[in-house]
């Protein structure tokens, strides 16, 4: 197709330029709308902004107020509990479902959408269904009693110490199916010839999982981790619909905290400072992980 050498040279140079050109708009909007806004928030966190942004600097006042608030500490602790359990359990269940579904299961076509569908529902109302289900007075416990299992007890949602675990439960329900789909896509991409060869060499199922399958699923683990941790950090609807942050403020998470200070309490400065702390925490966890994951790819 190429004719004159000069033309070909121009073409190569153009070829080298095109990829960057294609990437440029995405990079530009992300720098403006994400990193630009983060810097703006950082600035706001040092101002006395209340109902609308103000540009009056007040130093570290918002930060010192923030750490005097007992339910900020609660919400940070809750996030640690919630995120680790949620990410861990969802990954485990997702991986288990994907592995099992990959065993030539009858009715896979029916089961797959059943596992996946909770992701499609918005928590604005699904939260009500969960709230009822978990409510000892009208939900599961009540029904078990009606069915004759009198000693059955499940009142976590009403207990300040356990309510956060019901949030984990509902969150796992919502997203573990999606994790399953990602792992399933990964599993189906694995070359069966390698597995067969390994089997000939006398490898056990367990060994094959450990040595061949799991390492091949690394990109899927990365996606799952990023998606789940992002959902954990942003969990807002879920908490609002399920517990409203209660009992008391026992299930408050940073996302609900941030929203309430920025918008309902008209203390935008404190809201911004909590967002900055949040982002710094995420960065402290994500940056090393991403660094390790991405560096190896070279």
């Amino acid at each position: 197709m190429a004719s004159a050498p000069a033309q070909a040279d121009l073409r190569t140079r153009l070829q080298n330029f095109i990829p960057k050109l294609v990437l440029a708009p995405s990079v530009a909007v992300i720098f403006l709308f994400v990193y630009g806004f983060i810097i703006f928030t950082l600035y706001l966190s040092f101002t006395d902004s209340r109902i609308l942004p103000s540009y009056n600097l007040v130093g570290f006042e918002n930060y010192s107020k923030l750490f005097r608030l007992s339910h900020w500490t609660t919400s940070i602790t809750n996030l640690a509990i919630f995120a680790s359990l949620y990410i861990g359990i969802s990954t485990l269940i997702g991986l288990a479902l994907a592995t099992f579904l990959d065993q030539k299961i009858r009715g896979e076509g029916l089961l797959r959408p059943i596992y996946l569908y909770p992701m499609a529902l918005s928590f604005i109302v699904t939260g009500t269904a969960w709230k009822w289900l978990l409510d000892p007075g009208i939900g599961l416990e009540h029904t078990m009693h009606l069915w004759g299992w009198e000693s059955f007890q499940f009142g976590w949602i009403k207990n300040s110490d356990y309510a956060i675990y019901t949030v984990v439960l509902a969150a796992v329900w919502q997203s573990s199916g999606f994790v399953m789909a990602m792992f399933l896509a990964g599993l189906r991409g694995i070359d069966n010839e390698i597995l067969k060869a390994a089997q000939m060499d006398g490898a056990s199922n367990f060994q094959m999982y450990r040595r061949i399958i799991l390492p091949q699923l690394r990109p899927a683990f990365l996606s799952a981790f990023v998606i789940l941790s992002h959902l954990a950090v942003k969990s807002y609807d879920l908490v609002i619909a399920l517990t409203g942050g209660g009992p008391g403020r026992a299930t408050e998470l940073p996302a609900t905290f941030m929203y309430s200070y920025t918008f309902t309490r008209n203390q935008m400065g404190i809201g911004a400072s909590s967002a900055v702390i949040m982002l710094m925490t995420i960065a402290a966890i994500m940056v090393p992980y991403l660094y390790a994951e991405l560096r190896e790819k070279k």
Partner: protein
Amino acid sequence: MSVATQDTALRTGRVSRAFIYLFLLLMALFYLLPFGIMVINSLKPLSEITGGNMMSLPQVWTLDAWRSTWSTAQIGVEPTGMRPYFWNSIKMVVPAVAISTVLGALNGYVLTKWRFRGDTILFGLMLFSCFIPFQIVLIPMARVLGLTGLAGSTTGLILVHVVYGIGFSTLYFRNYYAVFPTELVRAAMMDGAGFFRIFWRILMPSSGPITVVCIIWQFTNIWNDFLFGASFADFDSQPITVALNNLVNSSTGVKEYNVHFAGAIYAALPTLLVYIVAGRYFVRGLMSGSVKG
């Protein structure tokens, strides 16, 4: 890998198969339970819900809640039902999903097959952008939309969703294309194929599964978004989640739970449809587009 040997090389005994089926069925039950409650209660008259057991089957089966939610329920001043808002959502979701998916695919392609200095850092920055809390975006974004004249328009909403969707769509495609054999791309380059030609002819045909995953993700997120939809839409472009919220969250009115559940199911129908339809292509894509040739 060839299509004929789709089955796994792993062998499983009878006992473990029974265990697997049991596990899968129990999990299915777990996933179905809350939705079951929603469906059952949407078919009851209101008095049966507030007065009785929420887990029991209806004594009187009725479709009233479904009918009224669609066309006569009170969303705003006019009893319009959820119908008009449905269309608003579609107008917003379809372009936003399409644009962010295409951009994600192209970005993933560049980041894996046309690598350059600093590409990993750029990707890291894009990934980290997924974590920005939407609460801090609201006010500055409103300012930007106001300055560009896009405030209160569907175009503005599409822009917002595309911006905050790119991080994820790039993640999906990058991780997928990362394991795609680079030799194929090199060979095509040798043959003189250009940037877009390689993308179109070589990567696209095997991108089925990941495109489906990406569309599912974007569609779900954008369709279910409330905060942006409520804040950046005008009276005539409010999406369905705002309508659902108005139906459910009226603070001092009588709460009609049956209508709420019917509304929630209506609002979820398009996403459910995408899951079922896309789910099929998901498998088909996996079977036909054999990556390793």
